[in-house]
């Protein structure tokens, strides 16, 4: 079976990956680790950083640094999960795309190739309530969705 794991870099999305790996290890098939990076997130973080540090003249530099770090960070997480999959003899690959998160997730999850989608319950802040996530994403994903805490 083919299982899609939505990785946003949070602890919960990594725990979600462990569930997917456990399932595929028993059932066979493949785990796809999928992440969406939204440039607007780096932009917002940079602007807030500029405001807080009272240094808006360097805001574009902040944005570039944050964007580069976001890409690097998610890649590190993917590579570590891939290594873990290899140790478990589980077929696994990863894909990082750029764009609007919700749209990209729905496009991938509903592409018709997955038996299951696994995701963490909270985002990186750890404070997002699951309500909006349920309606905006989970409710619109066609395959069953496992939400992990």
């Amino acid at each position: 079976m083919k299982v899609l794991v939505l990785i946003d870099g949070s602890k919960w999305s990594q725990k979600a990956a462990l569930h997917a790996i456990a399932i595929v290890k028993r059932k066979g098939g493949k785990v796809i680790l999928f992440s969406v990076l939204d440039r607007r997130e780096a932009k917002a973080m940079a602007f807030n950083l500029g405001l807080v540090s009272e240094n808006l003249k360097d805001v574009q530099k902040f944005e570039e640094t944050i964007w580069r770090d976001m890409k690097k960070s998610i890649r590190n997480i993917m590579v570590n999960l891939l290594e873990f999959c290899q140790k478990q003899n589980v077929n696994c690959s990863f894909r990082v795309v750029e764009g609007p998160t919700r749209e990209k997730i729905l496009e991938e999850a509903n592409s018709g190739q997955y038996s299951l989608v696994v995701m963490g319950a909270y985002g990186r802040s750890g404070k997002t309530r699951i309500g909006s996530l349920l309606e905006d994403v989970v409710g619109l994903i066609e395959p069953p969705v496992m939400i992990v805490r």
Partner: protein
Amino acid sequence: MDIFTRLIQKKFRGIAGERYEEVLRRYREFLLLPEEFVLPEISSVLMPIDRFSGEIPEGVYETLSAYPGASVTVVYISERKTLEIIEQTLGREEAEKLRKAKLEFAKKLSEEIASRLEKLGLRVERKYFIGSKSDDVITMMEEGDFDLLVVSRSYGSEVSRTSPVSPVVMKIVQHVVKPAMVY
């Protein structure tokens, strides 16, 4: 395990320096610690069903078949409030007729699902009772030692394109702390 130790060491120990242990304690909600980096075991599943639940997709059966020997509790809860309203408006006799009809339907539906699950090597327990679909599922998840909840997104009420998840499921999934599979 060692992969993660390495990652944490590389990413955080260098940055935090002498404050590594303190940082780790304070921010552990954001870090997957080495002791948490293990493949999870699922041995007990709660599966609430009702007439709104609809057909269970193959992906659910396929996923559950990854847990051979696990026990699945298929539970059908008839909403107490609905029965009370029927009794108040149409009388006790009608309410009793409805209760019996619901019980018959619950048994039939549970049997269909249970037989499919048993073929996958799962142990199935059936339960029917009158109560609250949301509160009782939350309580069962809290007190019943279940590892996984499997629930239809339309459990408890019909869904639409603009409200793709029923309010009952919203409430349940917001409260349970164990993994939940929504189909």
